[in-house]
């Protein structure tokens, strides 16, 4: 197989792929570079000196809006959404392995939640709170609106996981006298743990970046994407790029952390049962 020569189409498609990757990363790398503009630099190349001037400007609240506050809100909201998405999706994933009445209704509801344009959810949740005369906040209406976006993803991932799940592990546990709770706690949960990290990652980043569903649902105190959106109209300096660099770096940090966590879980497991079959 290895000695086989690559066909010409390989090189054509390979080139296309490289161009696609450049298309994805090119613009992003440009703003990372430009965020280190000197104090006199503008929004485009050339670079006029190098500095961290624009990063400092970011943390002075008056100049570029409430970056720190909105970041903290988005971070906290992301963590709450992450935790709830993992727990609720896992539970629902377990439910869908058995037959129950209304299963396909709930499934289609979850799919509908992905298909309904985000602005509708935002508008609906905003209206609901307005008519009930409850103040919209990021941790109530905002949280709910975000969950309508993250839970369907979590559920679909759990479907994919449980479709490939080998039931004989559970049967073995049951034969050895484990209660249903023990089976879940000591057999199912450890096996699906890496996927749950993935669900959590989805939950966090989808919430952290969510714009449309936040718009009318988070109330007067902006989350980060709303704040960034506001800044795009107000700021015409490289501080905007600095903001992009910081949030992007943070996203990558989260993704990297999750990937590392999954790898560690899998390694530890491989060490624990060196000769055993992989679940």
């Amino acid at each position, binding site marked *: 197989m290895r000695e086989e020569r690559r066909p010409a189409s390989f090189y054509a498609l390979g080139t296309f792929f490289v161009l696609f990757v450049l298309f*994805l990363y090119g613009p992003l790398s440009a703003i990372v570079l430009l965020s280190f503009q000197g104090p006199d630099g503008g929004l485009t190349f050339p670079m006029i000196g190098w500095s961290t001037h624009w990063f400092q400007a970011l943390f002075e609240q008056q100049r570029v809006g409430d970056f720190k506050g909105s970041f903290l809100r988005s971070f906290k909201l992301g963590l709450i959404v992450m935790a709830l998405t993992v727990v609720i999706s896992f539970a629902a994933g377990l439910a869908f392995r058995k037959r129950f009445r209304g299963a396909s209704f709930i499934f289609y509801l979850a799919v509908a939640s992905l298909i309904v344009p985000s602005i509708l*959810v935002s508008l609906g*949740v905003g209206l609901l709170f307005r008519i009930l005369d409850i103040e919209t906040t990021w941790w109530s209406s905002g949280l709910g609106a975000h969950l309508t976006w993250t839970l369907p993803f979590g559920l679909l991932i759990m479907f994919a996981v449980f479709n490939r799940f080998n039931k004989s592990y559970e049967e073995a546990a049951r034969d050895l006298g484990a209660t249903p709770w023990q089976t879940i706690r000591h057999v199912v949960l450890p096996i699906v743990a890496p996927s749950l990290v993935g669900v959590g990652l989805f939950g966090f980043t989808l919430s952290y970046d969510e714009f449309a569903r936040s718009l009318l649902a988070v109330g007067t105190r902006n989350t980060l994407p709303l704040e960034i959106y506001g800044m795009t109209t107000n700021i015409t300096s490289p501080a905007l790029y600095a903001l992009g660099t910081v949030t992007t770096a943070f996203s990558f940090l989260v993704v990297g952390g999750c990937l590392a966590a999954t790898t560690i879980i899998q390694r530890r497991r491989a060490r624990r049962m060196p000769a055993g079959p992989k679940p």
Partner: protein
Amino acid sequence: MQPDLAAERNPGWPHGRLGLHLLSMRVGRSRVAAAAPYLQVAPLAAVLGVFLVFPIALIAVVSFWDYTEYALIPDFTFRNYWELFSSVVTYKTYLSTLRFAAITWAVTLVVGFTVAYFLAFHVRTLKWQMTLFLVCTIPFWTSNIIRMISWIPFLGRNGILNSTLIAMGVIREPLEFLLFSEFSTVLAYVHLYALFMVVPIFNSMMRIDRSLIEAAVDCGASGWRVVREVVLPLSKPGIAIGSIFVVTLVMGDFVTVRLMSGGQSTSVGLMMANQLAYLQYPAAAANAIVLLAVVLLIVAAMMRIVDIRKEL
């Protein structure tokens, strides 16, 4: 626990206290087992009920309400729908949105299919497939708005592309249509949503039985015919799922159009956002219901091709 003497005397038959205990536990357990899926799915159902079904039902209700500059007036009037359907702007806006969706769909389909095909059939080891796949997905973990503004230094009047083209002598004046135009809007859409095509198509392709391809080649099919007659039909589910994602995302979008078109284009979402800015909630609600109907029609058409539940 005390050893059960009855059981010891008569092995094989669950006598005495332990036996009864086991028996009652089993009955109790089966009742719990029957209730378990309902309890497990309850939180999901509750969230979707309160934050999806109820709000959308409310939008439907409010779309029949009346309003003034200051207040919403509960009513049953067709005013909002009447105003919506009697305005030429509405049709233009819907057409423009559909056009964006169609163009973005076509481009992301070609790009997504090609990239997925390369990854699934030309990259030979699983390790490299996954690495390259990850390389494609990483940019999608960052903020959409940041990814949109990242085109500014590239496409702007004094941007990288214009300066390069001028330096190369291809053009004299900077190209104006690059940024804040329909072109940049579509470009941003493709940039933002291409992954939603790549992932499901790649997933479908990875499940194609390789022996089918070998069989086609053995029967003398050219590379192109294999793609057209084996790979393409078997990737249909992935294509359908990706298409549903891309089309619904573009149909409901308003940020991209607002940021990237420079006010030259419009979309249904943007129209709604403007109505909301003037607190015309019932008008926006009517618009939302029509948009939802259009999106659901498109999705229903696509769902005829694929059973999503089978594909996971």
